[in-house]
């Protein structure tokens, strides 16, 4: 693409290459936040190693005035602060782009390209001269490059200085040193380079009703607002910050004002097996309980998930997916758990899954997950991923309806029980597949035995085939019945499209951008985003009404495509895949190219 011919104001990508553990994360976050405060659509993606200190790490900032903020690998400005990765970083810059580097030491000749501009700032030298102590010099070097980038892209220094005041309000000496550092970089750039670059920023007003938020924080907020009281977990990237955030929120919002005691209980379990066990114990007792985890944790939880399915115990599980199999690449994103979630545990099972696309949906879906879990008395999985969970997203401000009343499903009170002739836990009295439950401690009449072994509709142990089948068939009906109660699929139709582009979860942004890109090339595509499993009937209708459906997802095996094949009437020959599973957030270029390739293959085959 010839990028230079277009107006590049508020349409650019910056990549910052640093070393983890050096404080660059907060500097990068500040850059992204400053752009957000200028009212410009922006996203920030952290690409980090599974390590605490000393390995390469990157931060990608994409600015796009049209609101396309999915990851883009077309880097206009590379802030190359890690000599160990210079080679790779400089190679990645777009033709016509620029490289900002620390010119305290010269660049190797081998790193020189004719088609990029080199912007050397002697950051280390300046920081040695102006600051004392090794740690401060390292930290201030980060702030100094932010200053240089601000000059190159025209980021308002006032915006950044206001952030220092907010952040270090009580420590004026920190405000002063950060101010000094930002100036060093800014002034040097203004003096030595032709500022601003063609790829530059201009204030807009796109973020008035937006906030900056990670999906994990949003999910934790959802748990608080849904009234969850018990959280059990075992630490795992990228799910850890769900519970960290939940704890932080509860410490503020969930204390008994008189006694200072907690209206919640968070247990760091000994492993994921125990974590899900605790959630089931709490759910059985009648509390809203959840556990955040990632694929490895889901694998461990399998036996319990089957118990929860069969004994019909509500639970909410957040699976913040990362690359598998096994330990995989723990700090890289993927959508590789669809299979394992859909049919987790041995025997015939099928689980309710919902797929948020962004932090906003992590919040609303989290609340819905608790309602669904109690209504259908079954585990509900909120399947997000590392990109949604851990990266800062600009999203619409969250709304809360104060009239919300939790859907506790069919839970019998002492009065309800007293009115009944007899209570039978697994007897479906109104034919919707859901049997009423009783909670421990409420009334002797509600007592029953919860078990994962064979039981009949009266809750009695059985080894009788018919009585066993009676119950498992009802449970199957119950789960099917959940399909239309899940968040409805997102569908966008255009005129005269015979091809459907289908996706799920965090691929949304890249796929919608690709739809736009391809429309410009004359390729009309209808768009469907699957939001729940079992699939709503609208999903099947969409698939059946298109000649071909191309499913875009982030795993090697086309797991969502295969689920669609299994669970809808669509023919295998009408499904194709575009897959991206290297661990990076999806970009529109990958999707668009994938679609072009699939279409040309089909034309060849048809011809």
């Amino acid at each position, binding site marked *: 693409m010839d990028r230079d011919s277009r107006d590049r104001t508020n349409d650019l990508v910056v990549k910052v290459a640093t070393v983890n553990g050096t404080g660059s994360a907060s500097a990068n976050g500040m850059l992204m936040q400053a752009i957000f405060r200028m009212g410009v659509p922006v996203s920030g993606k952290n690409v980090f190693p599974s390590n605490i200190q000393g390995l390469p790490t990157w931060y990608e900032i994409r600015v796009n005035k049209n609101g396309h903020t999915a990851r883009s690998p077309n880097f206009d400005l590379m802030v190359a602060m890690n000599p160990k990765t210079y080679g790779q970083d400089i190679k990645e810059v777009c033709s016509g782009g620029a490289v900002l580097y620390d010119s305290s030491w010269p660049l190797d000749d081998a790193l020189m390209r004719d088609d990029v501009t080199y912007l050397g700032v002697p950051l280390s030298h300046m920081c040695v001269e102006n600051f004392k102590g090794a740690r401060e010099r390292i930290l201030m070097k980060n702030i100094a490059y932010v200053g240089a980038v601000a000059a190159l892209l025209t980021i308002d220094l006032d915006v950044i200085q206001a952030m220092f005041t907010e952040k270090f309000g009580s420590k004026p000496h920190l405000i002063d040193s950060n101010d000094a550092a930002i100036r060093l970089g800014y002034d040097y750039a203004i003096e030595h380079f032709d500022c601003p670059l063609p790829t530059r920023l201009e204030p807009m007003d796109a973020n008035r009703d937006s906030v900056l938020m990670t999906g994990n924080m949003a999910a934790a907020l959802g748990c608080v607002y849904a009234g969850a009281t018990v959280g059990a977990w075992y630490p795992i990237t990228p799910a850890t910050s769900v519970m960290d955030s939940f704890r932080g929120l509860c410490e503020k919002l969930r204390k008994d004002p008189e006694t200072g*005691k907690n*209206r919640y209980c968070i247990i760091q379990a000994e492993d994921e097996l125990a974590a899900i066990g*605790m959630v089931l*114990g709490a759910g059985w007792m009648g509390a809203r309980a959840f556990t955040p985890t990632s694929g490895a944790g889901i694998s461990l939880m399998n036996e319990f998930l089957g118990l929860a399915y069969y004994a019909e115990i509500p639970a909410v599980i957040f699976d913040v997916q990362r690359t598998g199999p096994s330990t995989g690449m723990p700090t890289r994103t993927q959508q590789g758990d669809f299979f394992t979630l859909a049919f987790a545990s041995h025997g015939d099972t099928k689980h309710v899954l919902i797929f948020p696309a962004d932090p906003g949906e992590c919040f609303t879906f989290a609340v819905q997950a608790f309602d669904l879990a109690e209504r259908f008395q079954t585990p509900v999985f909120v399947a997000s991923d590392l990109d949604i969970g851990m990266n800062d997203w600009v999203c619409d401000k969250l*709304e809360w309806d104060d009239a919300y009343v939790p859907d506790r499903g069919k839970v019998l009170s002492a009065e309800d029980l007293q009115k009944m002739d007899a209570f039978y836990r697994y007897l479906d009295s109104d034919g919707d597949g859901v049997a009423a439950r009783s909670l421990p401690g409420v009334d002797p009449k509600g007592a029953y035995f919860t078990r994962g*072994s064979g039981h009949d509709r009266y809750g009695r142990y059985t080894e009788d085939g018919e009585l066993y089948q009676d119950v498992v068939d009802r449970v199957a009906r119950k789960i099917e019945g959940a399909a239309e109660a899940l968040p409805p699929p997102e569908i966008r139709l255009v005129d005269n499209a015979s091809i459907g582009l289908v996706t799920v979860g965090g691929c949304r942004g890249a796929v919608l951008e690709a739809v736009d890109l391809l429309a410009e090339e004359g390729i009309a595509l209808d768009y469907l985003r699957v939001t729940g499993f079992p699939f709503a009937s609208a999903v099947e209708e969409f698939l059946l009404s298109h000649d071909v459906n191309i499913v875009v997802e982030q795993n090697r095996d086309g797991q969502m495509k295969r689920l669609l094949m299994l669970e809808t009437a669509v023919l295998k020959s009408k499904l194709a895949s575009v897959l991206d599973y290297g661990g990076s957030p999806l970009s529109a270029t990958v999707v668009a190219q994938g679609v072009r390739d699939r279409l040309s293959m089909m034309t060849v085959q048809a011809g």
Partner: protein
Amino acid sequence: MTQTAKPSVQHPGLKPNKLGLTRRDYEGSQSTLCAGCGHDSITAAIIQAFFELDMPPHRVAKLSGIGCSSKTPTYFLSDAHGFNSLHGRMPSIATGANAANGTLSYIGISGDGDSLSIGFGQFSHAIRRNVNMLYMLENNGVYGLTKGQFSASADVGSKAKRGEANQMRPIDPASTALALGASFVARSFSGDKKQLLPLIKAGLTHRGFALVDVISPCVTFNDHEGSTKSYAHTRDHGHKVVETDFVPLLHEIQAEQNRESATAVTMHDGSVVRFKSVAEDYDPTDRDAAYAHLKKLQSCGEVATGLLFIDPTSMDLHEFENTVDESLVGLPFDQLCPGSAVLDDLQSRWR
């Protein structure tokens, strides 16, 4: 098949407890274990204990793992919610249930396979969290339900039914629990109801994790000659450390007058458990001494039974977590959901 042992007198005039319930009201369905199984005697003692403590059955949650022993919650307290969970995973279910609602009484039933092999981790961590529950480990040295394989508590030299002798050192739940910092450790024998009953009552009343390790012979797979968990062996080698006499709150004064030499320990609810040392110098509140004593007896092939250790002042899960006194399940929604104004306020800082 046996019936759970029924009380000796069974007529309509069965003496009710303070709640007006008779012992029958604390029973469950008929046992399906082998005739003579030690587990059934334990069930009988459990029924008696709840009855004598005047506990409302529906305010009890009974949980178990998987195994012959774990089947037994069906055989007592039919008016209580029961949860027959997964092999070795009862402690996590109990922990979550207790976290949600600390106002119920919890009894967990497990076996030696359930607790010391597949569930060793969960067993240990429930002790570490001091989950407020009575934990009955019905210990027969074998996997009963899977037909007699050695469990991790089988003693060195103990012979399996087919003749082969175990060579690996056993995991002893009582000394393990002591080492892990358990706040209540007792051991008894299924055939000694006189000793078992007050231990169960004390364990139910203790706030925190109360382990009662009960040697419970498996008549089908581990009651032959050469087994160290048989009825005959346990009777000959059992060695009582502390005689426990559980004294509910209301009888305290009267009881105290009668028992001069006993050590009285006041439980969190004010009731008193009295321990009469068989050995004069035995102090059930001294963890190190308890551990040393257990090991000493073990080395001469004897099983220390009775109340081995108690710390009635330990913090339980809810105290560690500083949760409110009431059940989390019953909290009104407006105490849980902060509402739209708070959401707006939070978000004003995320810009």
